[in-house]
């Protein structure tokens, strides 16, 4: 797995190249999941990231060397952007000892101590206060490090969001709140859930700086991250980065709203329009990133080569993980505190 080790440790001079690599890694990894999920080897509920790749990669790339990250249950893009390790990623989904978390975490709790991804959680909003705790400890330990927490727009309706934003502002802590807003909680639109004026007005009421990025490309997401970091470093206040994106698939699982398979899926089928879906299919994050690079002066063949290299690494990682040993109960049991 030399390729994987290389991709993980590699620091290309070109930010654009790294952004493209990470987006390609997420997109190709999730394509493999879609291809193989029904073989029932990955026995874990999947909340797919397809659509949020640009947002997550852009922000992570800005903050990865001096931050702690906290996520939620849609973990794939965050884990891969932070750890860049498709082998541990697939091993985890396949329930293998070699997974990021020994096969215990599955899709919803992937994390990486060495890369500073300290939590992902299936309880909506629950990791938001953890980011504040880490920031508070940074202050006491006198370490210059940021806390970056990702959550969906539904988490804004949770009490802990307000409690934490209040304290972040009160204590003047450098926390980046990243709201990945797809406008849906499962299949319920924001207007049916949110009784406040706007996310912006809500956040600004807590004296929090607000940055908005509407369905960004990966380079635009990176630019939004840079702006957020500038504000964080200057103000000593929390910053709220609001990013919208289109969720291509259903809340959970590997089907979209319109395919045959979705008929038996968890959600109702008529909450989004086919026209909108078709429109977004023309601007998938990876395609947009590729187009952006080419229009920025990169050779088409060179860009294609980068994507193919990543697809090859991802496939190799999946195949290797597939052959690994399953996680065992005895080992898992020893990981509870005491018995």
């Amino acid at each position, binding site marked *: 797995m030399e390729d994987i080790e290389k991709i993980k440790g590699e620091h290309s001079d070109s930010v654009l190249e790294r952004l493209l690599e990470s987006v390609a890694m997420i997109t190709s990894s999730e394509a493999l999941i879609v291809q193989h999920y029904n073989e029932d080897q990955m026995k874990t509920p999947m909340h797919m990231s397809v659509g949020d790749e640009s947002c997550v990669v852009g922000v992570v790339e800005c903050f990865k060397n001096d931050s*702690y990250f906290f996520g939620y249950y849609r973990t794939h893009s965050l884990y891969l952007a932070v750890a860049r390790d498709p082998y541990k990623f697939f091993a985890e989904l396949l329930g293998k000892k070699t*997974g990021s978390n020994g096969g*215990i975490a599955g899709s919803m*709790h992937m994390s990486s101590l060495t890369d500073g991804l300290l939590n992902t959680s299936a*309880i909506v909003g629950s990791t938001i206060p953890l980011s504040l705790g*880490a920031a508070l400890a940074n*202050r006491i330990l006198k370490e210059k490090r940021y806390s970056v927490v990702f959550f969906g727009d539904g988490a804004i309706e949770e*009490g802990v969001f307000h409690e*934490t934003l209040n304290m972040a502002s009160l204590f003047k802590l450098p926390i980046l709140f990243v709201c990945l807003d797809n406008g849906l909680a499962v299949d319920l639109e924001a207007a049916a859930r949110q009784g406040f004026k706007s996310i912006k007005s809500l956040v600004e009421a807590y004296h929090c700086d607000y940055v908005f990025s509407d369905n960004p490309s990966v380079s635009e997401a990176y630019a939004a991250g840079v702006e957020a970091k500038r504000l964080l470093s200057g103000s000593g206040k929390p910053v709220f980065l609001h990013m919208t994106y289109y969720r291509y698939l259903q809340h959970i699982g590997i089907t979209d709203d319109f395919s045959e398979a979705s008929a038996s899926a968890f959600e109702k089928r008529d909450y989004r329009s086919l026209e909108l879906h078709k429109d977004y299919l023309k601007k998938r994050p990876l395609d947009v990133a590729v187009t952006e690079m080419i229009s920025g002066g990169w050779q088409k063949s060179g860009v294609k080569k980068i994507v193919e290299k990543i697809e090859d690494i991802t496939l190799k990682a999946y195949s290797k993980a597939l052959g690994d040993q399953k996680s065992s109960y005895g080992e898992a049991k020893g990981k509870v505190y005491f018995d």
Partner: protein
Amino acid sequence: MSKTYKAALAEAMQEAMDTNPNAIILGQGVTDYKGIFDTMIGFVDKYPDRIIETPLAEDSVAGICIGAALNGGYPINTHIRADFGLLIFNQLINLAAKYKYMFGGLFEVPSMYRMVIGRSWGQGAQHSQSLQSLMAHIPGLVVIMPADPKSILESYRYAVQEHKGPVVMLEHRLLYELSYEEDATELSHPLFGSKLEREGTDLTIIATSVMVLEAKRAADHLAEIGVSVEIINLHSISHPDKEMILKSVEKTGKMLIADTSWAAYGVAAEMNRIVNEYNPSILKAPTHSMGMVNTPCPTAKVLEDMYYPDVHDIVDVCAGMVIGKNHAMALPKKESMTDFYKHFKGPF
């Protein structure tokens, strides 16, 4: 030298702050002049950066504790009534308790949650609950009910200095002002053990928190009428010393559980499970579970006194179990436990 329960708590908190430069105490009222019932008076002046008065946001504050623990801090979160601890159950149970396991052993979240069980003066239904069994049910949590100053010092020290996970300390308000003589009995382990308080031959009383004192008072009375009881101070609710329990019940053949909470699905049920799964034939008589009446706590004093069992009930039950139901032994008078402990002057 005698020492009060609250003085031991203050000493334990002081030691935590002094021995661990990354210890922080967070909660509502931690900078208050009453200092969490005299257990951290003046701390905010001494450690202004590490004593953090929080808004009314229990759920988030527990999450903040986890985040701080992940990042090298040792958070101590206070709740002057354990009932408010219910507001942190999401973070405590869904996150803190599972942290090490759920992420495949990558992370540890050493942290302490101090919750005070209220009692007396009409604390009522929401300021008096004893929630030990709810929390001890959860793998990954350590739940302690210290019954004396020595247990406090040993278990808090171990939690702060050695243990790498979340510990819930259920302190009993009724014990705070009481003074204790230093005694020779030892915990079998500060967090994963119990204490043999008194040796006896006729019956084993397994008691928690303030009921340990009631059991001791009852034992003195029972000795006068020729009944010899052995008392186990359970101390660790989540990880009691099973060997100690089985050895004792094997010797006496009789078991009374005196807990501060409701009997059903609680400590009493767990003690019965431990004994029955080992060998039910060590029991020579049916066991007895003593806890609060199976209702929420009433406010009216006359009802409250009926609600909690006390020394009178323990003596009655023990005499019944050893001598027979119609024992006709003189019982200590039915007196409000609250009145007794509030006015008791001498050290235990």
